């Protein structure tokens, strides 16, 4: 299941979408909107054809790289409030035993593997590291006076990226359960190319 949607993500459905009788483990990663200072919500918008194409390619590369049996990626569009689920990634693996090298990738200790996956993410004919687009608006509450900043771009005070991935925390949580699968997720999330695949363009917008 590869999808971008306005509706709330049904996590159970995402899990079910990767279930297989021959899978020994399923790992679900859920990205949520974090309450950074002044942040109330994130608004995501998408260039759907590119997003679907890139997410599909990402899933296929992850399957190949980490031996994942099934993988689903579902991302929200529109406004997602703090605490809301913005992305869900589910992976099913045949075996629970982990790929140690992959763990190291997920943990950020294997630059070689990172580079490898990053290279793989760039298909022929695609120039530049960034491929697909899910844009968003980071909504912040701010004193009205502050809104006068940035006269050229009153609604775009800054560009920030938001694929919020507490890599270390998630790794710790799941590593003992199904390293191979977790690692695949974390590897992708940790590798810069993931941001290339799921590109989040965040505009800081003052909200009255």
């Amino acid at each position: 299941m590869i999808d971008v949607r306005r509706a709330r993500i049904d996590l159970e459905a995402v899990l079910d979408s990767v279930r297989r009788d021959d899978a020994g483990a399923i790992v679900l990663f859920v990205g949520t909107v974090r309450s950074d200072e002044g942040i109330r919500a994130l608004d995501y918008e998408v260039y759907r054809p590119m997003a679907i194409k890139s997410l599909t390619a990402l899933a296929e590369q992850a399957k190949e790289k980490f031996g994942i049996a099934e993988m689903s990626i579902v991302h929200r569009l529109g406004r997602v409030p703090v605490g809301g689920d913005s992305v869900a990634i589910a992976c099913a693996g045949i075996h629970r035993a982990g790929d140690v090298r992959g763990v190291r990738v997920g943990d950020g200790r294997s630059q070689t593997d990172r580079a490898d996956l990053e290279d793989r993410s760039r298909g022929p004919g695609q120039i530049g590291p960034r491929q697909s687009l899910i844009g968003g608006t980071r909504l912040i509450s701010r004193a009205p006076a502050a809104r006068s900043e940035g006269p050229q771009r009153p609604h775009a005070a800054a560009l920030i990226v938001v694929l919020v991935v507490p890599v270390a925390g998630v790794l710790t949580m799941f590593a003992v359960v199904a390293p191979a699968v977790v690692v695949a997720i974390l590897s992708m999330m940790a590798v810069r190319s993931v941001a290339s695949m799921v590109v989040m363009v965040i505009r800081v917008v003052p909200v009255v």
Partner: protein
Amino acid sequence: MQIRLRLFATYREIVGSRGLTWSARDGITLRELVDGIVTKYPRLADHRGSMLLAVNEDIVSAERVLTDGDEVALLPPVSGGAR
């Protein structure tokens, strides 16, 4: 020839449209097309250096020669994500 433009985020707000059709001469490059767009919408000039340019759903070089019916997307810069 006719080029279909797709605009996102800040660019959409500046131009005031999600998409429009742009008439261009045959053999025009993506860079030349964007130059023309920026000329018509000067507020895009501040973003010119950081734009990501896609043609028919692939990020491409600005030197890409466009053909009739191509869909060009102007995309805000992106980066990072794993923090």
